[in-house]
C-alpha cells in the first residue's frame, strides 16, 4: 500500500535526481503493471462478453427463437386493467411497457410515502414511555416483519374482496361514488380549457409565498422584526388559484359513475388489487422502517437529550430539535435500502393481478413474444435505474441533512 503510493507519486512528478528508467524498470513499475493488467482484464471481459452475446445469438437462432427489439413496435393484443396513459389492446408492446412502468412507479412512490409515515410513527411509539403503546408497536413490528410479504398480500387481497359487497349491492357514497368488490369509483374530473391558468396561478402563488418567507427570515435576522409570512403565504396560495378558478368559469367537468348491468361504469376506479398491494407493501416495509427509526433515535448519545433538557427544552422540543435531526443521519442510509426493497417487492403484484412492470412486461409480453433475454434485460435495466436514482436522491438528502445539522 505504502509502496504503491510512493511509486505513484514518483511516476507523476518527474523527479530530476532519479536516473532514466529502462524497459526493465518499467516492467517492474507497479503503476505500469497495474495499468497493463487492468487493460488486459478489461479486454478479457470484453472478449468474454462478446463470446457470450454471439453464443446466445447463435443458440437462439439454432433454436429458432426470435431476437432483437423489433417486437416493441408490434401490436400487444391484450388489455390492462389499470392504465395511467392511453392504452388499448391495439397499442404496441412498447406502450404496454410504459403502462407497466408507470403502474410500478405509482405503487412504489405512494408506498414509500405511506411506509415512511407509518414507520416513523411506529418507530417513535416503540420508544414511548407509555408501556402499552410501546408494546403494541413492538407487536406490530414483530408480526409484520415475520410474515412473508406474498402471504400478506394474499391475505389482504382476499380480505378486501371478502369484505366488500357485490356490485349490485354497492355501497353508495356521497358525490355519486360507489364502493364494491370491484373497487372504489369516484367522479372523474375532466379538465377543460382554462385549467392551465388555474395551475399557473397556483405555481406562481407558491413561488411568491416561498420568496416572501425567505424575505421575512432575512429581515428578521437583520432587524429582529417579525412578519406573518406563513399566514400571508397560505392565504396567497389559497386565494390566487381560487380567483383564477372563478374567472375562468370553473374549467372542470365530471365523468360521473353510473350503475351498469355488471359494473359501475364511468368515473375513476381505485382497483382492489392496487389498494391491496399498496397497503401490503406499506405495512410490511413500515415494520422495517420502524426498527431503523428506533435504532436511529436510540443511537443519538444520551448526553444530547440531557443537554437539551438542561437548556430548558421540553421533551417534545428536545426530540424535534435535537434528537431527530441527529438521528436522521443514522436513519437515512438504511432507509434507502428499505425504499429499494419496497420498489422491488412491488413486483409481487403479479400474484394478485396488479398490472405492474413485471406482470405486464416480464409476464405477458415475454410470454407472447418469447423474447426472454430482451425483455428481462430491459426489465433489469429499469429496476437498476430506479435503484440508482433512489440511491442518488437519498444520498443527496443525506448530505443535506448532515450539513444542516453540523
Amino acid at each position, binding site marked *: 500500500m505504502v509502496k504503491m503510493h510512493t511509486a505513484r507519486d514518483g511516476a507523476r512528478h518527474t523527479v530530476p535526481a532519479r536516473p532514466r528508467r529502462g524497459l526493465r524498470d518499467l516492467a517492474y513499475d507497479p503503476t505500469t503493471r497495474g495499468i497493463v493488467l487492468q487493460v488486459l482484464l478489461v479486454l478479457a471481459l470484453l472478449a468474454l462478453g462478446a463470446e457470450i452475446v454471439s453464443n446466445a445469438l447463435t443458440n*437462439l437462432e439454432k433454436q429458432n*427463437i*426470435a431476437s432483437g427489439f423489433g417486437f416493441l413496435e408490434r401490436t400487444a393484443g391484450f388489455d390492462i386493467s389499470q392504465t395511467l396513459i392511453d392504452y388499448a389492446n391495439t397499442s404496441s408492446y412498447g406502450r404496454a411497457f410504459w403502462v407497466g412502468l408507470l403502474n410500478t412507479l405509482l405503487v412504489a412512490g405512494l408506498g414509500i410515502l405511506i411506509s415512511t409515515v407509518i414507520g416513523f410513527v411506529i418507530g417513535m411509539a416503540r420508544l414511548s414511555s407509555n408501556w402499552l403503546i410501546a408494546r403494541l408497536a413492538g407487536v406490530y413490528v414483530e408480526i409484520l416483519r415475520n410474515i412473508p410479504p406474498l402471504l400478506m398480500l*394474499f391475505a389482504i387481497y382476499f380480505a378486501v374482496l371478502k369484505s366488500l359487497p357485490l356490485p349490485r349491492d354497492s355501497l353508495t357514497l356521497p358525490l355519486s361514488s360507489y364502493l364494491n368488490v370491484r373497487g372504489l369509483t369516484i367522479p372523474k374530473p375532466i379538465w377543460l380549457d382554462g385549467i392551465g391558468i388555474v395551475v399557473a396561478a397556483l405555481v406562481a402563488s407558491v413561488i411568491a409565498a416561498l420568496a416572501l418567507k425567505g424575505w421575512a427570515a432575512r429581515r428578521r435576522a437583520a432587524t429582529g422584526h417579525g412578519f406573518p409570512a406563513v399566514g400571508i403565504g397560505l392565504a396567497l396560495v389559497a386565494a390566487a388559484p381560487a380567483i383564477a378558478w372563478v374567472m375562468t368559469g370553473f374549467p372542470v367537468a365530471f365523468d360521473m359513475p353510473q350503475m351498469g348491468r355488471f*359494473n359501475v361504469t364511468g368515473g375513476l376506479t381505485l382497483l382492489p388489487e392496487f389498494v391491496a398491494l399498496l397497503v401490503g407493501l406499506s405495512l410490511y416495509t413500515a415494520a422495517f422502517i420502524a426498527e431503523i427509526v428506533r435504532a436511529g433515535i436510540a443511537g443519538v448519545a444520551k448526553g444530547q437529550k440531557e443537554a437539551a433538557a438542561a437548556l430548558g427544552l421540553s421533551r417534545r422540543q428536545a426530540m424535534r430539535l435535537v434528537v431527530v435531526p441527529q438521528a436522521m443521519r443514522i436513519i437515512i442510509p438504511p432507509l434507502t435500502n428499505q425504499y429499494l426493497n419496497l420498489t422491488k417487492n412491488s413486483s409481487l403484484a*403479479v400474484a394478485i393481478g396488479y398490472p405492474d412492470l413485471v406482470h405486464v412486461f416480464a409476464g*405477458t409480453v415475454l410470454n407472447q413474444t418469447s423474447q426472454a433475454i430482451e425483455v428481462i434485460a430491459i426489465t433489469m435495466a429499469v429496476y437498476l435505474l430506479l435503484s440508482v436514482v433512489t440511491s442518488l436522491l437519498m444520498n443527496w438528502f443525506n448530505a443535506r441533512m448532515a450539513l444542516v445539522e453540523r
Partner: protein
Amino acid sequence: MKSILTTGLAAIVLAAVTAGPVLAQGTLQKVKDRGQLVCGVNTGIAGFSAPDDKGNWSGLDVDLCRAVAAAIFKDPAKVKFVPLTAKERFTALQSGEIDVLSRNTTWTMSRDTSAGMNFAGINYYDGQGFMVNKALGVKSAKELSGASICVQTGTTTELNVADYFRQQGMTYKPVVIEKLPETLAAYNAGRCDVFTSDASQLYATRLTLGSPADHIVLPEVISKEPLGPAVRQGDAQWGNIVRWVLFALINAEEFAITQENVDKMKDSTNPEVKRLLGSEGDFGKGVGLDSDWAYQAIKAVGNYGESFERNVGQGSRLKISRGQNALWRDGGLQYAPPIR
C-alpha cells in the same frame, strides 16, 4: 447494484451456455442417459393433469407423457412431472428444463415458429368459452358488455378475449392473475362476473368451485384451441417420437386395440395392426426405438379413446362427450396418418 449486475450477467451467461448442450446431444439420448423423461404439465386441471393426494399424476396430458416414457423405457413410471403455470411453461421448454411440454397448450403459429418450439400433434380439440354465475341471468356471451373478466396470464385466452370484445364492439374489464387458484378465488369472491378459459378447463375448474351447479358455461365458443404436446425445435427425431406415440394411440383406437387386448392383438392378421404393434416391419427404428414402442405405449395407457373416457369422458367426473375429439370416422377430428 453490484448484485443486480452480477445476477443479470449470470442469467445471460446461463441463457447463453445452457442452450448449447441441449442442442449438441439429442434429446432421446439425454432422456435415456437420465433414465427418466421430464414432462412439463399443468399445475392441476382435473382430467388433464392433476396429482392425487399421494402425488401420482393422472390425466389426458399425463397419459401422453407416460405413453412416451413407455415407448422409450418400456416403463410408464419413468417420468418426472414438472408442474408449470401458463407463464412459466415456454421458458421451461426452451431452456431444456423439460423434454416435452404436455400442458393443454394451444398450437399457434408464433409458438410453433418464433418461440423455438414445435407442436407434435393435437390431443384435444378445444375452444375458448365463458363461465358465469347463474345468478347473473346471462344466457349469451353477447350480453357481456361491461363485465369484469378473470383470466390467467400468459395464455391465448388473454388475447382472444380482447379480440372478441373488440370485434363485438363491447367493452370489458380485465382481471389478469398469474396463477389459477388465485384467479378462481377472485372469480369466486365476485371480483369478476366471468371466468374465461378453454372450455375443457372451464368444466374442470367448475368442479372445484363451492357449488358447481351455480355456474354455467355460455354457449359461445370464441376461438380454436387445438391443444397438444410441444418439443424444442431443432431435434427432429425427438419430435417424431412424441408425434408418433400420439398417432399410435389414435390408430390403436381405430383398430380397436385396447390396453386389455393389446397382447392378443399381437397375433392379429390385420397387417396394419401388425405394423403398429411391431410384429411386422421395424417401424421403431425410424424413431430410434425398439419395434414394440407402440405396443408399450398402448399397454401403458390404453388407446386414445380409453384415455379420453377415463380422464375427461364418461369414466370421469368431467363427463365431456367426444365431440370434435371423436375419431374422424365417427364424425370427429382425430385422425392419425397410417403406419407404413
